[in-house]
């Protein structure tokens, strides 16, 4: 009897905690938790030969944003603070100069864009502009479109555009996006205040 009992001794699990701690510390050191977030953009494809005659766009359908090497903004030939940019851009996109856009709330000014589909935002920066400023300007321009889409979604569908699920409301999102298509064009940077 005594012999039988001794045949299967209990395994010493006292160092189990030490081993687990070791693994835990390894994972703590080698991994990171930061999630990657950022502004998604699409670059235009590269073409060896420059397009000779770009399609003509009416001057009033272009919203020019210039950023100089001192991170100052010139919007439609006017000095502007970054905090005013979003509002100005929204006014421009939503202007509805030719009256073809039924959901727009713009002022229908003749010197501003015809409708959201024709409105193009042209962005040009200097080579000396800081990246932080560039991202801020991009952010404001994207936000202008997002805010307009948000308003449109609230009115047409009674729910928030930002809160929509990308799978469930796929078709709705498509409609809203085509109501205010994002048209931001970037020109080659200037090299003045290098």
């Amino acid at each position: 009897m005594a012999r039988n009992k001794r045949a299967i001794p209990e395994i010493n699990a006292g160092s189990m905690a030490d081993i687990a701690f070791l693994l835990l510390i390894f994972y703590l050191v080698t991994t990171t938790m930061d999630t990657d977030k950022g502004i998604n953009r699409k670059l235009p494809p590269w073409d060896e030969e420059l397009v000779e005659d770009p399609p003509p766009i009416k001057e009033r359908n272009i919203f020019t944003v210039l950023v100089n090497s001192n991170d100052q903004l010139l919007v439609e030939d006017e000095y502007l603070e970054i905090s005013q940019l979003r509002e100005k851009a929204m006014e421009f996109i939503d202007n509805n100069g030719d009256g073809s856009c039924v959901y727009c709330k713009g002022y229908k000014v003749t010197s501003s864009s015809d409708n959201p589909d024709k409105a193009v935002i042209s962005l040009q920066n200097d080579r000396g502009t800081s990246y932080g400023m560039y991202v801020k300007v991009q952010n404001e321009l994207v936000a202008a479109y997002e805010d307009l889409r948000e308003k449109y979604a609230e009115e047409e569908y009674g729910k928030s555009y930002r809160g929509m699920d990308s799978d469930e409301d796929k078709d709705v999102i498509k409609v809203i996006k085509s109501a205010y298509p994002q048209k931001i064009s970037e020109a080659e940077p200037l090299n003045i205040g290098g």
Partner: protein
Amino acid sequence: MAVIKKKKEKGLPAVNTSALPDIVFMLLFFFMVATVMREVDLKVSVNKPQATEIQKLERKSLVTYIYAGSPRVNYQDKFGRSARIQLNDAFATIDDVQAFVIQERETKSEEDRPMMTMSIKADKSVKMGLISDIKLQLRKAQALKINYSSLQPKDVEALYSSEN
């Protein structure tokens, strides 16, 4: 009497630690699931810009990173202080970007290649000249989906103040 005396001599019983491995394993599994492996050893300092209209990068395996910023203090005597590009674990020049993108694309499977995203992680003080050069190289390499890596600001008002 004798029995009581014996008990007093023993003092406090040892704390039962048999559940300790379980607790530690639980922590371990949490960290294994919630974190990702650190990709590279950063050689440039990157203080990301802040933005509100940010989206999460969905499939990590399809994302390739390009870092730009001034070299960290311990690399400064060798590489100077002006902004540099870092690809993988090494400093690179602008001419390396195109080859790097093509090489990275080769490692992805055929159907995933059009979905490849380039994440530009640059310091906010970097001049746009460098970023424009990177963008031109990416266009030449047909890597058109890009993402300007930024942080969600804690205080939105601070975005518009002049110092940052």
